[in-house]
């Protein structure tokens, strides 16, 4: 009996302590899709925040973006939401349309951290939709050109290519078969290439690259009110042709490639088009003897344009309104401490950071930052997923994979994609 009462007392005590704690500590749920090494960096930031702010406990939930968004929608249908939801600028319209996120104009007006002048203007503008600001900017990421210094030196190329002519010349020298011959040489054997000039994305980054090249030609994807496909078919074909020819005509890129970063690190390809998030992997590969550098994404056609995206923070409609202040304080802290986030490779968007000495010392970033003004994002529209989702048979994915993997007729695929897009957008 005495044992029992002792137990009861203990339980009562524990419950009391827990209840006290629950009252004191505000718990914030924070969701993001950083499944790579960047997830660990974000966790470190969160841990630091929790340590410095005993009254707040931020719980970071990480899973891949697509299932994360599915969970976000499913939770909202039950009237629940995380307190802070990370996403990409081109995806906000989808969630605005569903009523899942709230505008942040008032918050920004009162914030000392989120001030327009403190940011790269492009990064700021991307957070707007229909005249209202919906998200708090955090970083940007764009395609750039990684190149292998040893392979460039061996081929006698002094500088990374900046235009189509230079690119094709370099590509020829960097593509080598087992006998050491280049494409165009007498007896060159395309079936036995040991070194390719560059990677070729067979995933969604394939159509991202196409989108950049199509923009370099001045092309437009959708009409002004985003109700139909407005592709200039000739320009769309021209942009795809460049990419397809790199594989099937110039033999400069491998067919059916799957692991772009690995192929670059092992020297299978001499160049790599990818985002700045590969920088940590490149730094790590220096231990294996990789010597690398970055250059801006080349301007193949008329004007500079490069695919880009970024991360931002949104405040969900179904989050607990009483935690709004704490959520905002945390996001402001993240923005103010975003230098630590740069270890993930992502690009800074705060002017003071970009101008700082410590940023200039970080390897590989400058070429990316220089291209930021030329970044093009996919259209931010409510039906974004249906047209652009990377893990579904969307019109863009089908078009890209058929052209790059199957060597399909480009004009047919472009026309099919355009018709499919119009069909999707015509349904209200």
């Amino acid at each position, binding site marked *: 009996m005495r044992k029992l009462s002792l137990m009861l007392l203990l339980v009562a005590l524990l419950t009391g302590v827990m209840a006290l704690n629950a009252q004191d500590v505000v718990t914030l749920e924070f969701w993001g899709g950083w499944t790579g090494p960047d997830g660990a960096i974000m966790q470190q930031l969160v841990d630091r925040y929790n340590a410095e702010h005993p009254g707040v406990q931020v719980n970071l939930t990480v899973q891949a973006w*697509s299932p994360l*968004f*599915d969970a976000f*929608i*499913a939770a*909202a*249908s039950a009237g629940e939401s995380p307190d802070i939801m990370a996403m990409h600028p081109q995806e906000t319209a989808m969630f605005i349309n*569903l*009523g*899942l996120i709230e505008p942040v104009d008032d918050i920004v007006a009162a914030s000392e951290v989120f001030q327009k002048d403190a940011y790269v203007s492009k990064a700021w503008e991307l957070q707007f939709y229909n005249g209202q600001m919906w998200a708090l900017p955090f970083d940007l990421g764009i395609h750039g050109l990684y190149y292998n210094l040893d392979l460039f030196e061996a081929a006698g190329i002094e500088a990374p290519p900046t235009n189509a002519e230079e690119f094709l010349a370099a590509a020829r020298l960097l593509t080598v078969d087992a006998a050491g011959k280049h494409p165009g040489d007498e007896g060159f054997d395309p079936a036995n290439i040991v070194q390719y000039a560059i990677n070729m994305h*067979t995933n969604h980054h394939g159509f991202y690259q196409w989108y950049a090249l199509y923009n370099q030609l001045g092309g437009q994807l959708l009409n002004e009110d985003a109700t139909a496909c407005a592709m200039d078919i000739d320009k769309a074909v021209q942009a795809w042709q460049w990419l397809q020819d790199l594989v099937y005509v110039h033999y400069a890129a*491998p*067919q*059916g*490639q*799957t*692991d772009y970063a690995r*192929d670059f690190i092992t020297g299978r390809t001499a160049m790599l088009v990818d985002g700045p998030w590969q920088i940590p992997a490149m730094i790590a590969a220096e231990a294996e003897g990789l010597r690398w550098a970055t250059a801006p994404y080349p301007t193949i056609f008329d004007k500079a344009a490069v695919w880009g995206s970024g991360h931002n923070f949104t405040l969900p409609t179904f989050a607990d309104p009483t935690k709004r202040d704490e959520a905002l304080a945390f996001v402001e802290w993240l923005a103010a401490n975003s230098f630590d986030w740069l270890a993930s490779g992502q690009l800074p968007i705060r002017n003071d950071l970009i101008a700082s000495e410590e940023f200039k010392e970080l390897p590989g970033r400058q070429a990316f930052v220089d291209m930021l003004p030329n970044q093009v994002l996919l259209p931010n529209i409510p*039906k974004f*997923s*249906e047209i652009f*989702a*990377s*893990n*579904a*048979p969307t019109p863009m*994915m*089908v078009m890209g*994979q*058929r052209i790059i*993997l*199957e060597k399909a007729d480009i004009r047919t695929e472009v026309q099919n994609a355009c018709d499919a897009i119009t069909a999707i957008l015509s349904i209200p």
Partner: protein
Amino acid sequence: MRILPRTAESGSYAALAGLAPKRRPSLTPYYFILPYLVFFVLFRLGPSLAGLGIAFTNWQAVGTPRFVGFANFEAMARDPRLGDAFQNTVFFVLLTVPTLIVLSLALALFLNQPRRGRAVGRVVVFMPYVIMSTVVGVLWTWILDKDFGLLNVYLNFFGIANVPWLVSESTAMYGIILTTVWWTVGYDMVLFLAGLQDIPHELYEAARIDGARAWGVFRFVTLPLLAPTTFLVLMLTIINSFQVFDQVYVMTSGGPGTATLTLVQYIYTTSFQFQKFGYGSAVALILFGILVIVAFFQIRGYRRGLKGVE
């Protein structure tokens, strides 16, 4: 000749029940299945019934569903992707089911022999089945990698050039089928093993005394007596194959192009990724209809098969 021994199906339990003293049916057994039943009702039956209603609405998971009558079903006729998904799924079923049945039966026969190491053999064949589907998907994405995959390394050994497996429309579905067979063959094998062990030894002895050879024994003793198990395995395999999703989602997301897009993948994509839950539910209802028809014919065939055996 009547070769089917009396089993539960032929009514021996019913006879036993008749002997037992009559008493009120006990609730106890239901307590045992209660935990499962709760989950079944909450996460299977409930959502299924809800889906039946959602199929006739326009619903984005948030907000109020709007009744649209048969609009979702009419839209299916104009949806080329659905046609792709249907075609791919039927292709997958037609190739996977016979392969699984034949292979699992062969493995069961082989591992039913009293031989050294058969326990290890059974474990090895069954083991993949306990691995989570996502792990299987990631594992086989590596095995099937065009440039560095283990399978192509072996094929190179036999002088076969790299097969593009998951990065070509013409081979991607075979990659998925291969993965599925490796993953699930053990389950079918275990069912067959159970069936084989139910066949009385005397029948084999009698057949051999009558002069039957191995094939004759298999054809006239094993196969007919295994019929109930075969029907069960066939039914489960067909239903599971029609619902193929996990491997596809992890390995190809339905690509390249639409080469491996299957019905359940399409239901998931339209519902959760495109927030068209009404349309997704309507497609799910069609798949449900297909499965009911398949099950109907199979149960009929099963009953006839049993009668034929008797």
